[in-house]
C-alpha cells in the first residue's frame, strides 16, 4: 500500500509533466476528447466550453499543477505512513537492461524525504497557476517548464526509491539534467545561460564523483554487483572506506552546495522561475543530504570519527561563509541561495557530530544529533520554500529583485509581508518557530560532548557549537536586514511605491500553508521528532537517549534533568505577558495614539534616500569580517568651487566570493593551458592527420602482433 502511494507520487508528477506538452495541441486534444465521449453529446458541449480556445492554455496549466498537487498528496501520505509503520518495503522493477532489474526500497529515511518533497510540491502546486498565468507563451513556453518540472520532481522521487547504484545514478541524472533545463528556462540573458552551464558542469563532475564512490564500494562487494544490499555487505578496509567517503562527500557536497563547491548555487537559483528555485533550494539540496546519509550511514555503515570531524569543519565553514556571503547580496534570490549554503552547512555540521558520537560508541547521542540534523533539513525545506515563493510574489509585484529598490511594502502588501516575517523569524531561529527547535536540539547534542574520551574532540565540538551560535546570530542580522529593508521604512523606488498585494488566492494559500507548518512544528515539535526517531532507529539502530523524549508538551531529548523545552507553555506565558501589558496600557481611553510626522531633527524634508540601505546596514560586518570577501569599493567625489566642497558623490560596491578567484579561475586557466597544448597537435593540415592515422595504425599492428 505504502509502495503504491510512493509509485503514485512518481506517476502523477510524471503525468503533470506530460500534460504540459499538450498546451499547444488544442485541436488534437479536443478531437481526442470528442472521440472518447462520442456517445455523450452533452459532455462534448461541456468540454468545448471548458476547454475553449481562449482559456485552453490556462486550463492545461491548472491541470498540470493539480496533478503535481495530487502527486504531493500521495507523497505526503506515503511519507507519513512510511514513517509511522517503520517497515522496509522492497520491490523489483523489470525496467532497464534485462539482466539488471531496478531495485526499489522504501524505508523510513526515504519516507522522510518523500514527506519533505511532498509538502514542497503541494505548496508549489497551489502557487504555480498564479505564477505562470502571465507567462509569455512565445518566449517561455509552458510546455518546457511543465515537462521538466515533472521530470525533475519524479527524478527526485526515484532517487529516494533507488536501491541499486545504477537506478540511483539514472534517477540522479534525471534530476540534474531536468533541473538544468529549468535553470536555463529564461535563456535570453547570457548570464542565465552561463549560470545554467556552470550548474550542468558542476552537477556532472559531482555525478562522476558519486559514480566513483559507488565503484569503490562495488569493487569490494560480492560478485561486483551494484545492489545496495551487496554494497552494504562489502568488506572495506579503512583506507578504501575513507576514499569512498571522500568521493561521496565531494559528489553529494557539490549538489548540496558545501563551500567551496557551492559556486553554482548562487548563480543557478536566482535565474530559475521562483517556484523552481524554491524546489531546488528547499528540496533538491535535501536530496543530496539524503544521498550522503544513505551512502555513509547506511551503505558504508562502519563510521570513523575522522569523517565526522571533516564533515563538521566543512559544515562550519559553509555555514559561516554562506551567511556572511548572503549578508552582502543585494539580489534577494541570491541572498536566499547563499542562505541555503548556510543551512546545508548547519545540517552537515550536526551530521558530523552524529558521526563522531556513533564512531565513539555513544549511539543514543548519535541518534540525537541525527534527529537534529534531519529536523533541520525538514525545517529548512519549509521556510526556504516559503522565502523563495515569497520572493517570487515580490518580484512579480515590484518587478525587481534588488532589495534596495524596495521598502515600505508592509503597507502595500500586508499578507505577503506577514507570511514573509514568519519565514524570517523561523530562519533566524527565534523561539516558538521551527528553526529554533532544530538548533536547540543541535546545541543539546553538542553539550553532551563530556562523554567523549578524546580531549581534542572535547574541545573541538564546543568551538563548533560557538560557530553555530555565531551563524545563528549572523542569520538573524541578515534576515532582520532583509525584512527591514524590503518591507519597512519608506519606498525606495517608484515600483515599490506602486506595488500592490497579490490577488491570486492560491499563491497566498501556498505561503500560508508553509507559514502555518513553520509555526505548528515550532509549537509542537514533538509530532515530528517522534517520527524522526523512527528514522534514527531504522538507520542507526538506536533511538533518543530519553525514550519519552518528545511528548506533545515536553521536549527533553536527554533527560528531564538535563534539558527541557515546552513550547506550548512558552506560548501560553507569552500570550499572558503580552495580554497583560496590552490591556493594562490600553484601558485609559484618553491616551489613544496620535499620528504625526517623523521627527526630522528640525531640518525638515526627510526623503527615502536618507534611509539606511542594505549595504549601509551591513557595513560594520563588512569591516569586521573584511577578510571573508573580495571587496571592491569605489567612492568618486566631485569637488565643487569652494575648497572641501563636494557636489556629487558616487559610491560603488562590489563584493565577491573568494572561491572564484582562488579555486575556480586557476582551474579554468589550467584547463585552457592544457587545451592549448593539445591543440598544437591539430594543425589543420590533412597530411599531418593522415600521418597520425598511419602511425597509429602501425603502432596498433605492432601491438597486436
Amino acid at each position, binding site marked *: 500500500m505504502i509502495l503504491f502511494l510512493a509509485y503514485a507520487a512518481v506517476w502523477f508528477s510524471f503525468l503533470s509533466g506530460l500534460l504540459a506538452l499538450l498546451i499547444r495541441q488544442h485541436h488534437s486534444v479536443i478531437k481526442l476528447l470528442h472521440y472518447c465521449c462520442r456517445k455523450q453529446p452533452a459532455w462534448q458541449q461541456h468540454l468545448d466550453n471548458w476547454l475553449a480556445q481562449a482559456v485552453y492554455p490556462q486550463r492545461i496549466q491548472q491541470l498540470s499543477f493539480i496533478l503535481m498537487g495530487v502527486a504531493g498528496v500521495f507523497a505526503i501520505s506515503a511519507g507519513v505512513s512510511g514513517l509511522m509503520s517503520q517497515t522496509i518495503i522492497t520491490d523489483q522493477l523489470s525496467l532497464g537492461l534485462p539482466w539488471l532489474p531496478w531495485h526499489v526500497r522504501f524505508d523510513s529515511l526515504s519516507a522522510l524525504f518523500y514527506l519533505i518533497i511532498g509538502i514542497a510540491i503541494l505548496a508549489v502546486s497551489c502557487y504555480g497557476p498564479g505564477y505562470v498565468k502571465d507567462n509569455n507563451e512565445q518566449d517561455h513556453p509552458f510546455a518546457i517548464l511543465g515537462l521538466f518540472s515533472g521530470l525533475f520532481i519524479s527524478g527526485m522521487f526515484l532517487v529516494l526509491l533507488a536501491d541499486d547504484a545504477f537506478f540511483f545514478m539514472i534517477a540522479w541524472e534525471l534530476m540534474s539534467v531536468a533541473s538544468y533545463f529549468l535553470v536555463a528556462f529564461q535563456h535570453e540573458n547570457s548570464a542565465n545561460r552561463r549560470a545554467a552551464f556552470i550548474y550542468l558542469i558542476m552537477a556532472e563532475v559531482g555525478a562522476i564523483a558519486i559514480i566513483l564512490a559507488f565503484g569503490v564500494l562495488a569493487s569490494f562487494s560480492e560478485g561486483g554487483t551494484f545492489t545496495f544490499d551487496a554494497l552494504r555487505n562489502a568488506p572495506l578496509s579503512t583506507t578504501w572506506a575513507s576514499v569512498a567517503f571522500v568521493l561521496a562527500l565531494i559528489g553529494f557536497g557539490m549538489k548540496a552546495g558545501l563551500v567551496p563547491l557551492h559556486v553554482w548555487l548562487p548563480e543557478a537559483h536566482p535565474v530559475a522561475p521562483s517556484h523552481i528555485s524554491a524546489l531546488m533550494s528547499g528540496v533538491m539540496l535535501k536530496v543530496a543530504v539524503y544521498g550522503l546519509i544513505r551512502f555513509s550511514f547506511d551503505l558504508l555503515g562502519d563510521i570513523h570519527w575522522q569523517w565526522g570531524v571533516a564533515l563538521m569543519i566543512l559544515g562550519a565553514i559553509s555555514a559561516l561563509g554562506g551567511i556572511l556571503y548572503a549578508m552582502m547580496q543585494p539580489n534577494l534570490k541570491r541572498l536566499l541561495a547563499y542562505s541555503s549554503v548556510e543551512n546545508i552547512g548547519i545540517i552537515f555540521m550536526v551530521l558530523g557530530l552524529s558521526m563522531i558520537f556513533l564512531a565513539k560508541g555513544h549511539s543514543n547521542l548519535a541518534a540525537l544529533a541525527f534527529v537534529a540534523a534531519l529536523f533541520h533539513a525538514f525545517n529548512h525545506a519549509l521556510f526556504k520554500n516559503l522565502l523563495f515563493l515569497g520572493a517570487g510574489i515580490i518580484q512579480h509585484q515590484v518587478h525587481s529583485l534588488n532589495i534596495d529598490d524596495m521598502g515600505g511594502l508592509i503597507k502595500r502588501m500586508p499578507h505577503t509581508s506577514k507570511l514573509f516575517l514568519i519565514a524570517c523569524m523561523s530562519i533566524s531561529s527565534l523561539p516558538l518557530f521551527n528553526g529554533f527547535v532544530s538548533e536547540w536540539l543541535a546545541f543539546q547534542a553538542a553539550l553532551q560532548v563530556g562523554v567523549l574520551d578524546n580531549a581534542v574532540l572535547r574541545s573541538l565540538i564546543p568551538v563548533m557549537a560557538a560557530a553555530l551560535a555565531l551563524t545563528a*546570530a549572523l542569520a538573524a542580522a541578515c534576515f532582520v536586514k532583509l525584512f527591514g529593508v524590503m518591507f519597512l521604512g519608506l519606498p525606495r523606488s517608484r515600483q515599490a511605491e506602486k506595488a500592490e498585494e497579490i490577488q491570486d488566492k492560491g499563491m497566498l494559500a501556498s505561503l500560508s500553508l508553509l507559514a502555518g507548518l513553520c509555526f505548528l512544528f515550532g509549537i509542537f515539535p514533538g509530532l515530528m521528532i517522534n517520527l524522526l526517531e523512527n528514522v534514527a532507529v531504522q538507520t542507526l539502530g538506536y533511538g533518543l537517549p530519553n525514550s519519552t523524549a518528545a511528548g506533545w508538551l515536553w521536549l527533553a531529548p536527554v533527560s528531564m534533568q538535563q534539558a527541557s523545552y515546552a513550547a506550548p507553555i512558552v506560548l501560553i506565558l507569552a500570550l499572558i505577558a503580552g495580554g497583560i501589558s496590552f490591556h493594562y496600557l490600553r484601558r485609559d481611553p484618553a491616551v489613544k495614539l496620535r499620528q504625526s510626522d517623523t521627527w526630522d531633527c528640525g531640518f525638515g524634508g526627510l526623503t527615502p534616500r536618507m534611509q539606511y540601505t542594505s549595504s549601509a546596514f551591513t557595513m560594520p560586518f563588512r569591516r569586521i569580517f573584511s577578510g571573508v570577501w573580495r571587496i571592491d569599493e569605489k567612492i568618486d567625489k566631485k569637488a565643487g568651487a569652494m575648497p572641501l566642497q563636494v557636489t556629487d558623490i558616487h559610491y560603488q560596491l562590489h563584493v565577491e566570493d573568494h572561491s572564484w578567484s582562488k579555486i575556480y579561475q586557476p582551474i579554468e586557466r589550467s584547463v585552457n593551458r592544457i587545451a592549448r597544448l593539445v591543440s598544437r597537435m591539430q594543425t589543420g593540415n590533412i597530411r599531418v592527420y593522415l600521418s597520425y592515422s598511419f602511425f597509429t595504425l602501425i603502432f596498433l599492428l605492432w601491438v597486436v602482433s
Partner: protein
Amino acid sequence: MNILLAILQTLLFISLAPLLAGWIKCCKCYLQNRKAPSPLQPYRDLLKLTHKQPVVSKDASWLFVIAPYIIFSATALAVTVIPLIAVDLPTAASADVIVLVGFLAFARFFLVLAGLDVGTAFGGMGASREMTISSMAEPAMLMAIFTITMTASTTNLSFAIEHIMQEGLVLRPSFIFALLALILVAVAETGRIPVDNPATHLELTMIHEAMILEYSGRHLALIEWASQLKLMLYGVLIANIFFPWGMAETLTLSALGYGLLAIMGKLGILAVLLAVSETLFAKMRLFRVQEFLSFAYLLGLLGMLSHIILEASR
C-alpha cells in the same frame, strides 16, 4: 505552591528592575560629584510615560505599534526562567538557558525592526549597530554559559544553580573565565559604557537610543522597562550562577526573606561595581567593540578549555 512562588518571583523581578536602574544612577551621580535623583525616579518616569499620549509617525506600520508589547513580553518571559530568590523554579523547566538566549534574540529582533520601520537614518544606524554587537556577543555568551552547563551537566538554570550550591565553594578556573566573559557580554548587551552610553541622546555613537528615538508615551515606557529588565536579568544571572549562596533552598518564609535580602545585596554590589567602571572608562569607538567582544569570546573559550582540560572528571 511552587507555581505561585514562580509567579510572585516573576512579578517581584519585574517590579524591582526600575529600582536597580535608579540605584545605578544614584551611585554614578555620587561618584561623579553630582546630586543624585531618588532611586525611585525610574518608577516616576515610567508612570509619567504611561499617562502620556503616544505619538506615532505617519510612516510607521502596525509593526511599530505592536513591537513594544512583544519586546516587553519576550523580556518578561526570559525573566520567568531565572531563579531569583529560590533555587527551585518550576518554570525553569519549560525553557532552559538556550531558550533564554532565544527570548532575548526575539526581543532584539523586534526592537531592530521597529528601529527600521519609520525609515529614518537614526533608526537604521541603531539597528545596524545593535545587530553587529549582538551577533558578536551571542557566541561569547553561549561559550560562557556552556562552561557552566557542562560543569553542572544540565541547561536547566534551576538545576544548574542547585548543582553549584551543593558543590560548595570550589575554586574553578573555568568559572573565573566564564564570569569575566559574561560580565563583558552583559556590559555590551545592556548598552552600558564602554560599549554604548545610556545617558546620551543625539550622539552619533548611540545604539539603543537611536533605535527607539521615535517612541513616546506608553510605548517608550514599555521599551525602557524592558531594557531595565534586561539589565537586571544579566545582573541576576551573574549573581545567582557564580555566587548562588543565600538563595532559598527550602520554601520557608524565613529562607525566602533571606533569599530576597541576599539577591538585593548582591545586585546592589554589582551596581556599585558597574557605576565605578562607568565612571572610570570612556566610551569606545564602535569598531573597538569587536575587539572587546572577541576578548569576551576568548575568555569564554579559555573557560571552556580549562573546564575540559583541568576539571572534567577523567
